[in-house]
Each structure stands twice: as structure tokens, then as C-alpha cells.
């Protein structure tokens, strides 16, 4: 889904709200269970990072426009769906060289050690709903584009202001 027509294209992707994320890792569990029928964060296309106990955040493909991963692939194995922004991997062309992984500014691409192919979030298009979002009991994950995230942030700031004023 795109946001407006007269601005740079913004594609929907998984957004994590760090204030709501508690670091449970269930997003990664749900992803690896959905895509590989196992539990293994290393096989998940969304990864939760926890540095301090208090700082937790999940990262998945951000569907950049003019995605650096696509540009980096020496074999043209990656293409971007111009409608959804999702990166599609051609498993016949991909040889797991990892250039796209290094090009990704968010660390959102996974190299499957068994198949030697890269994997990228596809928003569980075939299931109707990203399973990480379904399993995120804290509603820390949602689908958004930068502009919707900004809108949400603005609303939260103003709501907080309103609460403070009414106290």
C-alpha cells in the first residue's frame, strides 16, 4: 500500500513501538514457526534485540523504496514488488553471498544456513496477517509507513498533553 502519490513512495512494513515492546521474543517464535515449522530466532525474519533489560525492539524488513538490498544483489535475485514494496527473493538466482545482508541498513535480512538462500519478511501475504503481529500480545507491532508512525506519535504526544492539562 502506498501513501499519497505526490511524495516519495512509502510501503507498509512491520513497525515496532519500543515503549510497548517487552522483549518477549514471541514475534521471532511466531515467524520461525510460520515459515519453517520450528522455533528458532535465527530462522526468523523479524528479530528482537535486547541490549539492556529495559531496551527491547524488533526489526523486520522496512520495505525501503529503491531498496539497497535489491541494488546490492550481484545476481539480480532480489526484486521489489512495486505495489506492496515487499522484496521477493528468486531462490534459483540467490546463492547466499550475503551482499544484500550487508547492504541492509536495518539488519533485516536472514541467511538460512541450510538452504543457503536469503529470506526477507513478506508480511505473511498468504495468511492474510503477519503472524508476528498476531502473536504480539502487547500490540507493540503494527503495519505502518513512516507517515502513519509520525501521525501516531503526534496523537500520543497531544493526548499526553491533554491528560496533563486535565490533571
Amino acid at each position, binding site marked *: 500500500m502506498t501513501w499519497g502519490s505526490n511524495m516519495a513512495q512509502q510501503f507498509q512494513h512491520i513497525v515496532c513501538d519500543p515503549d510497548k515492546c*517487552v522483549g518477549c521474543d514471541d514475534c521471532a517464535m511466531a515467524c520461525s514457526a510460520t515459515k519453517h515449522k520450528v522455533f528458532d530466532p535465527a530462522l526468523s525474519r523479524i528479530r528482537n534485540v535486547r541490549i539492556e533489560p529495559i531496551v527491547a525492539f524488533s526489526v523486520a524488513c522496512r520495505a525501503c523504496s529503491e531498496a539497497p538490498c535489491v541494488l546490492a544483489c550481484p545476481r539480480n535475485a532480489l526484486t521489489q514488488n512495486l505495489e506492496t514494496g515487499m522484496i521477493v527473493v528468486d531462490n534459483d538466482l540467490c546463492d547466499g553471498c550475503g551482499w544484500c545482508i550487508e547492504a541492509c541498513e536495518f539488519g533485516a535480512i536472514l541467511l538460512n544456513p541450510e538452504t543457503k538462500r536469503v529470506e526477507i519478511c513478506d508480511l505473511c501475504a498468504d495468511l492474510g496477517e503477519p503472524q508476528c503481529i498476531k502473536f504480539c500480545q502487547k500490540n507493540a507491532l503494527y503495519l505502518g509507513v513512516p507517515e502513519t508512525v509520525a501521525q501516531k506519535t503526534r496523537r500520543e504526544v497531544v493526548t499526553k498533553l491533554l491528560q496533563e492539562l486535565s490533571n
Partner: protein
Amino acid sequence: MHSYSGRILHIDVSSRKSHVQNVSEEFLKKYIGGVSLATKLVYDNTPKGADPLGPDNALCFAISAFAGTIVPVGSKHAVAAKSPLTGFIGDCLASSYFSAAIRRAGYDGIVIKGKSDKPIWIFIDDDKVSFNDAADLWGMETFPTEEAIRAKFGDERVRVTTIGPGGEKLVRFANLTNDRGRQAGRTGLGAVMGSKLVKAVAIRGTKPITVADIDKLCEMSHQLGEVAQGTKTEKYRILGTPSNVLSMNRLGVLPTRNYQEGVFEDAEKISGEYMHEHYTEKAVACSGCPIACEQIAHVKEGEYAGARTSVDYESLFALGPNCGMDSMAGIIAAIARCDALGIDTMSTGVTISWAMECFQRGILTKEDFGGLEPTWGNHQAVVKLVDMIGKREGIGDLLAEGTKRAAAKVGKGSEHFAMNVKGLEAAGYDLRGMQTFALGAAVGTRGPCHNRSLAYESDAKGTVDRMKGGPERGPLAKEAEEFAAVFDTMMLCKFIRNCFKDVWTEIPQLYTYASGIAMTPDDLKLAVERACNLKKAFNIREGWQKSDDWLAPRWLEDPVPSGATKGVVVKPEELRVMIDSYYHARGWTPEGLIPRQKLIALGLEDIADDVGV
């Protein structure tokens, strides 16, 4: 085999060798995991009469079928050994990523024996075990140790459990810390690891975890996770366990000034509500937990500025009202110091409160404290004493022995208020106003523990008269132990316990979806009864006497001076009746021993000759 590995890793740090013991599905179904499996490993690998701080004591880790899966609150591991504090079974639980690392490395349990000739840390890299020089880590606090080891790899799959200076110095209530702030906290297992000169155990597991029916397991886990966002866990999610402060105060069972009183006049200043408003930054979760109870408190100004740690009720009571402390910042600082030094907040707090009462009564003087004056509520003194215990400096060396040994050494009547059972310091519920739990505390195999006996629930809910004992309490205490054992063997956090409609059918169902092993409610009931008996059997083998199931004199002789429980004591004759009824409910002899036939009926025929009568 699904969700189990069928493998126990044995590590001998004396010879620096390791081997794998294969175990059958039948064995795993019998012991399930967690506390039960860990106790079995201790029973089999620690010879009778072993010195808890000697090379023969086996330090055992065990996980269960849910570790590293999507099952809510299922990523936990147990650690057990013969306790240096009690001389009996010491069994602990801790949560978060470490359990999944054990599973992904391909083990159900790990047994560590022997003693290294110099400080080392162990690295379990899937199938490979290496022994690494820990000279650069020895003396380091817990969190920096974990970070230093992880930094050597730059691989987030590496998970670490470590001791702090407390474990190195053999503080008898030193603990093990994993994942930046989760502790296998009680009974001194950190000292056991320290006695082996093992600073840390790091694990990298790379194997994906398979389960028998992943779709059904995910579906049931998702439903449970949704229920866990509702009223059944509200207490834990919003204020966390510190919400207990005001509830316990109202009930007159908030241990105050070393259990001299059950009401703290300044409870409002150190309550969960107060902490939430002034100090809590965020509630976070262990890995695999949709509840997120962990209240991270941060002191931003004043003399303790910078202190930041997760605060639970038990730490808060022990270092708070129990030491007369009305300084929330001081309490947070004291807890943070315990965590950094790797010592149990509960035993530390209750031991310091014992020392403070000795000071109150002139049994210990300012000179004994090296110039400190630990009057009630003196937070500078309390924080300083925490440090002295963790480093065994000055009077800290005496206090690092725990209340039982310290009181035996100091004498002068201080045994009267050494608030332990079997040597383990008590939990944050005054037993005089919670007499079903008084029974649970007296007979508890690891000591007076609110995690192994949920007997306080009948007291708190008012289904019994909590101010007195009676013969109906034996069966209640047995049930309360076995209910707790469901969670402690399956390895689920008890904070989800009210989210099930029927624990006895739903948990076996989850277990079967994970492991593929059929389990009926009756199988589970038998398994948890077996687990409780196995712990008791270990204690009997290690010299348990009937007199060990008893309470410190204060609870029996000193009436509570004020509040809702004013005038109440645990009457010795009522305690005796309760204990007798408990032994009877368990099918034990009036002397509290386990009949051979009982052991055989529980499938424990292999130990019937050791301990059965």
C-alpha cells in the same frame, strides 16, 4: 524425539572432560524436567554426605519440554545442588533466554562436578565443551561478566549464567545470574559454582527446536497469551509483585524490623503504587513471556542516583520494611548491589535484619560493625552491609554465613530471632498470620518457600482461619506443594496459573503438543507427587531429622504486637497437629519418613533401599 533432546551433558571440571548421557523418553516423561529432573540429577550424581562446597556436589541444570518454544512463560531453567545453606536439596528456577540456549545446544540437563585448579568459565558450543581461563573475569560483578563473555563472540546466541563476587567468596546465599538480571536466587547455588572455581557457564545452541504439533501448540499458546492480558494477571502486569506491600500490610503479615511486627507504619512510602509512580521506568518480560511483570526501577537523583534494577516484592520486603527502611531509593540501591554482587536479596535482607536486631538489643555493637550504626531504617548502613556481605569484609564475613550459622556463633539469645527454617531465610509473609503457610514453611524441603508451597493462598483468600492451625491443613499443604510442582517441573512461570481453566488437563495437553508424549491428568498428578517425594528422599538421605521440620522460636513465642494479627502466635501444639496431618496426607510415617511401598508406588523403587522404611 520432539522438544526434548534425550541427552544430559556431564562436565567434570577437575579432569576437564565431558560426556553425554542418553536418556529415554520414558525417563523424561517420568521426571518431566525443571526442579524434578534437576533433583533427580542431584540425587544420582551427588554422593551421600557430600560437602556442599566440595568437588563432589553436583551442580545440575535442567529444562523442560517448553524451553525455547512459543509456550507462554515456558522459557525457564532449574538449577539444583546440595545447598550450602541448608545441607538439603537446593532447587532454584530462573527465566529467559538461557533455557532456550540449553535446548538449542541439544541437552535436557547439565551436570557439573569437580573442582578446577584455577578460575575458569565453561563454554558449551553445541556439542563442544571448552574450559577457558577466567583470570580476567574473576572478581567481576555479574552483569559485566556476562557482557565480557558475550563480547568475546559478538554472537547474540551466546547466553551466559554467572556468579558475582559473592559466589567467588562462597557467600552461603550467593546466586547465579543469567540474561542481565534473572537469578537462580535461593539456597546458595552460586557458592556451589564458586567452590568449583567456575565463574560462568556460556552456551551457544544453534539447533532449531521442533515440536510434535506446532500448529496446535501455537494456537493454544496464542489463546493462553490472550487470557494473560486480562484480569488474571493484572496485578503482575501493572504494579508487579510490589503490589503485595500494601496487601500484606493490611493483613498484618508484612515482616517488619526482622519479623518483630507485621505492620510497617511507612508502607505507603515503599509500596508498589509509590514505586510505580516515582521509580518504575518500564515493565519488561523474560523471553517467551506475554505477561511482563518485571518492574525496572531507576533512581535518578540523590545519593543513589543511577541505581537501576528490577524490583520484586520479596526483595523489597526483605531489604525494606524488614530492615525498617522507608527509603525507596535506598531499597532499590540495596537490591541493585545484591544483584551486582550475585547474592540472594531475600537471605541478604533477612540476615541484615537479624544483625540489626542484634544491634538493637546490644548483642552486637558499633565496634562489631566496624563503626557502622545499623539502626532500623539506616539505609546507608544497609547498603554498606550488602557490600560487606558480598565481599566478606568485616562483619560481612559472619553475615555471609546466613542467619542460622551466624546466630549459632553469636549466641546470646540471637537464635530466637534468626528467621530461617532449615537454614534458609524466610519469605515475606509473617507466618503467625498465615498458618497454613506456617505449615508449608515448616515442612518445605528447601526451607520456608513461597514458591514451592502456595499454601499462603488459602490463608490470603480466607478459606481457612489464617490465625490458627488445624488438622485440615495437612492435605491443603500437600495440594499446594503439588500444584506448585506442576509449574516447577513443566517449567511454566506461576504468574500464569490463574489463566488456565483446568491446569490438570490443559498443561498435559500443551506438553503433548510439544513433546508428542501422551500425558493424562493422572500421569501429571503422579509425576508431581513423585517430584515432592524425591526432594524429601534426598533430604532424608542427607540426614534429615523430624526436628528440621519446625519454625524459629519467634513465630512460636512472640505474639504480634499490633495490626490485624495482634496477639497471634503459631501455637506449637497446633503446628505439631498440622505437621502430623501433613505427613499423614503424604502417606509418610508419623516420623515423617517415606515407606518403601510408597516409594515403589511412585516409581521410585531405585531409591527405596536408600531411604525407604
